[in-house]
């Protein structure tokens, strides 16, 4: 069931277009991430959903009802701010109780709800503390509990993990997933971190220059990106140039080899194409097997823990990165010429930009 529908939304500041032609519907209970580089419009969209920014054009519907111009205080959306924006003068419990007091709940009901929220985020014993007495991760939990306390229809989150260190970020990702699962609340999450988006979302809307470039489940966007931007923004990728073979319209020539690839009918022989292949899909060594084979020279080999990153130069002079699982004997030296293989299914072909 569609809970939130965004129709042809646009926002222009003076002469700058922050957002244009945004169409997105969010299902009840979904975890949707708005992902994009800074200045891509994702935060503007979130602020429009919250009611802090008035769109220049378009409609936002909740359950079919137009809420585009509704005040933020009338929307019943929870909002988790970047930097949390907790009330510094109120204790943890009173931060969480704020929305309930505003709604004039009875005291016993407020107390019960606050206790429930505290245990939901695992802060039962910190109810009396002031925000400044908490660590970043704890403040984060308070911000989430505060935004969830009144039972919002939708929880909007604006880069909530960006202030945390890497370890804590991963823990909090799991926490957020758990909270999403346990509360059943619809999450709309803004981030510029593609790993975070992939790890948490049901669907990702990728933003660039004020537009949604692609929308889909993380797996689909990662494996079958339809655009150069998404292929490059989600995960690591190698982009190589190729062209359609002159003598065989099903074949592509690239990095010193040729292979058959799914081509669009509008591409003609000789057309320049962009070929992408993920580093984890390049296999090295004389291992038997099918796939597309080619030779490349090792430029650099760096050990980064679980994997080794090997920078290769193809016979056409292009560079590509291969990641291999670290094994004792996988010692490739710079200058060494290696046999490489790629599964044809793992290769993507895009019209060149």
């Amino acid at each position, binding site marked *: 069931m569609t809970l939130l529908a965004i129709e042809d939304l646009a926002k222009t500041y003076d002469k700058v277009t922050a957002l244009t032609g945004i169409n997105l519907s969010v299902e009840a209970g979904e975890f949707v991430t708005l992902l994009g580089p800074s200045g891509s419009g994702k935060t503007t969209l979130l602020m429009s959903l919250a009611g802090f920014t008035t769109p220049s054009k378009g409609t936002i519907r909740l359950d079919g009802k137009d809420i585009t111009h509704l005040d933020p205080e009338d929307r*019943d959306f929870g909002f988790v701010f970047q930097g949390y924006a907790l*009330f*510094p003068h109120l204790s943890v419990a009173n931060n969480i109780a704020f929305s309930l007091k505003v709604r004039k709940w009875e005291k016993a009901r407020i107390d019960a709800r606050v206790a429930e929220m505290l245990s939901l985020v695992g802060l039962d014993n910190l109810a009396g503390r002031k925000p400044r007495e908490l660590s970043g991760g704890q403040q984060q939990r308070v911000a989430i509990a505060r935004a969830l306390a009144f039972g919002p229809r939708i929880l909007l989150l604006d880069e909530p993990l960006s202030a945390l260190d890497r370890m804590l970020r991963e823990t909090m990702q799991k926490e957020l997933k758990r909270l999403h699962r346990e509360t059943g609340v619809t999450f709309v999450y803004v981030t510029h971190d593609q790993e975070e988006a992939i790890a948490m979302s049901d669907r990702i809307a990728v933003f660039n220059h004020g537009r949604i470039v692609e929308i889909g489940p993380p797996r689909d966007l990662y494996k079958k990106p339809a655009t150069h931007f998404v292929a490059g923004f989600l995960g690591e990728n190698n982009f190589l140039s190729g062209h359609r073979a002159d003598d065989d319209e099903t074949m592509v020539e690239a990095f010193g080899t040729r292979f058959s690839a799914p081509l669009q009918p509008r591409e003609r022989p000789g057309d320049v194409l962009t070929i992408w292949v993920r580093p984890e899909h390049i296999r090295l060594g004389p291992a038997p097997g099918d796939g597309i084979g080619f030779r490349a020279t090792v430029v650099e080999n760096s050990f980064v823990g679980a994997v080794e990153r090997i920078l290769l130069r193809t016979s056409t002079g292009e560079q590509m990165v291969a990641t291999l699982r670290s094994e004792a004997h996988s010692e490739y030296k710079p200058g060494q010429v290696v046999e490489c293989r790629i599964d044809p299914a793992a290769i993507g072909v895009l019209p060149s930009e």
Partner: protein
Amino acid sequence: MRNFKRTALLLTLPASLVAICLYAAPILQVLALSVTEPKPGLANYQNLFANAAVGRVVVTTLKVSIMTTVLTVVASYIVAFAIIHMSAGLRRVSLFLVLVPFWISVLVRAFSWITILRRRGVLNGALMETGVISSPLDLVYNLLGVTIGMVHYMMPFAILLLYANLSDIDRRIMQAARSLGARPATIFWRVWLPLSLPGLALATLFVFVFSLGFLVTPALLGAGKTLMIAEYISVQISSTSRWDLATSLSTMLLLVVGIIVFAAMRSPALRAAFVARPQQ
């Protein structure tokens, strides 16, 4: 670095010398006079408490100072609150207008108020002409006139202090309150006001302490009828040559102000005003 520090310290020397010679030394002299004139002992201080005239002056001073403080802080808070909500352009103009009084001598300002407030002044004239009142109001040469002049003098200071405090408050906290369902009035009482307490406390302390020792404005707008401590002391020195009374009263004023500042600085609200920016 160490060398630089030594040089830096050296650079403060001329200013320190001036301050010691022209400020610290006279104060110490006043203190000395208060216990030696006319004969050594604390008799001057005992006399202070027995003196009915001093009692009246102290009461007037407290009345004027408290009224001035309350009116100044409330009015300045409203102005500062409005300024932080203005667009950048309007805010620049407003802050400029707040600063203008600093360039006008306190004497000129006091005389201007007399022109406006006296019985045949601008205000009474206008009110009588339009028939709002039939006989002129006593707006100056009394408590009211002194208070008006002092509030006018203090407001720019208080506005700037409060403006600095209010603009430090993270505006996302207000957005958070709205997202939680709070309406503007609730946000003001439950969020803006509690978060402004450090600034309000600082402005209150500043205005009150400043008011206690104020000389020029009360002297001109009170015209000797509304007598405050500073003017009383000045009269004792320049007209009646009562050095014993003047020095002991000065010392008492200094002591009281010192105690007020010391006590106030121990309050959590004021301590918060001096702590570095709000934590994340």
